């Protein structure tokens, strides 16, 4: 019973962060602040959802696997958002130079 309650709380918190990240993606004015909203909020949300799943399944081996999934997602998403931001910055710089 306690296990289910903890799972539900973690999942709801995770969903809240995903919702906040998506709201940021839709409402923020430029690419950099959108990326910031997405990477920060979504990775935290994914962490909470992963934690919720780990608590629900309640097996140490599966928990380790879920932790690694979260870790790899963190690495991949932060690197790709960095690359997107770098590309955008270079684009803007070349545009400024032309003007």
């Amino acid at each position, binding site marked *: 019973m306690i296990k289910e309650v903890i799972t539900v709380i973690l999942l709801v918190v995770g969903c809240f962060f995903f919702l906040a990240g998506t709201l940021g993606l839709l409402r923020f004015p430029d690419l950099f602040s959108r990326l910031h909203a997405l990477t920060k909020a979504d990775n935290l949300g994914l962490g909470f959802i992963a934690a919720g799943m780990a608590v629900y399944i309640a097996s140490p081996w599966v928990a380790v696997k879920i932790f690694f999934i979260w870790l*790899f997602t963190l*690495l*991949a998403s932060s*690197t790709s958002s*960095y*690359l997107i931001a*770098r590309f955008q910055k270079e684009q803007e710089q070349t545009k400024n130079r032309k003007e």
Partner: protein
Amino acid sequence: MSVLIDILLAILVIYLALQSLLAPRLSQSVFLFFAFGLALALAWVRLGAVDVAITEAAIASGFLGVLFLDALRDFSPRSSEEQKNISTVQNSRSRNSVKSLLLPRLSLVLGLGLFLLIALEAVWNIPDGGGLAADAEKLLPQSGVEHPVTAVLINFRAYDTWLEIGVILLGLLAVFAVGKIQIYRKPIPVVDDILLRQVILFFTPVLFLFGAFLLYFGKTGPGGAFQAAVLWGAIGILLHLGGRPIFLLIPRWLGQLLLTLGLLFFLILGFLFIAGGATLFEYPPAYAGVLILIVETLAAISIAAALTAMFANLNQMKKEESNKIDSTN
């Protein structure tokens, strides 16, 4: 409750497919297609076909995604102006020729309707007891593996799988034929980014290990050569994007060997079986397990090499074109 999830998922898949087809801009279509691939993978998981789900996620959203994004980048810089011109031209043309479009549309609707009827009829007539499933289960101990899907793919219907590997190679040959083969050897400018390089260096062994795990796990559960090949192909694509194009660094003959290894070994094995008095791809049960593992490993290497080469070649062609445009300007 689970029926509710399934119904929602089915609606989501159809909705995403429609949106992907009807989206006004090319980039929207591509991103909706990714979402469609992931939703489809989820649907396969709900149907209990984890093998198909992994392949769907890896091929449709992974490999095709990379190719689509690559193509999209090629179209995007000149898209806004030219697309506007094209759409105005199309609009004026379509107004004149509404009548001539009626016949193709009518035949399309009729053809799709016929297809739908045939599909419904086929679903209606699925035999009780799942067709050949019982036979496959019965022969499983002789196949050398413990997972029925792998047994069917590499042993019972090895001929199909052998041809599939050939189809991937044919696709690569088509890419070679469309592009020019000489430019395949030219070096590309190295992307110098320390973070990208470190992350790629970190992910390369992880992806290799995970691919090897999927390959070996295919013996007892969902996994196998194709899933492993996509992960290994991802290594090649990542290294290519990080400025280490494998196919330019290794000698040409080695690249060709890697590409054809799987198909060739499979074929030689088949002929050896015939020479030994059996039929094509009839594994001797005593050695079946080892032979299947070797076949799968070599097939995975070949498919991974083919996927990498496909991406590398397409990526290369564009670099060449843009260089040409730059030099003429």
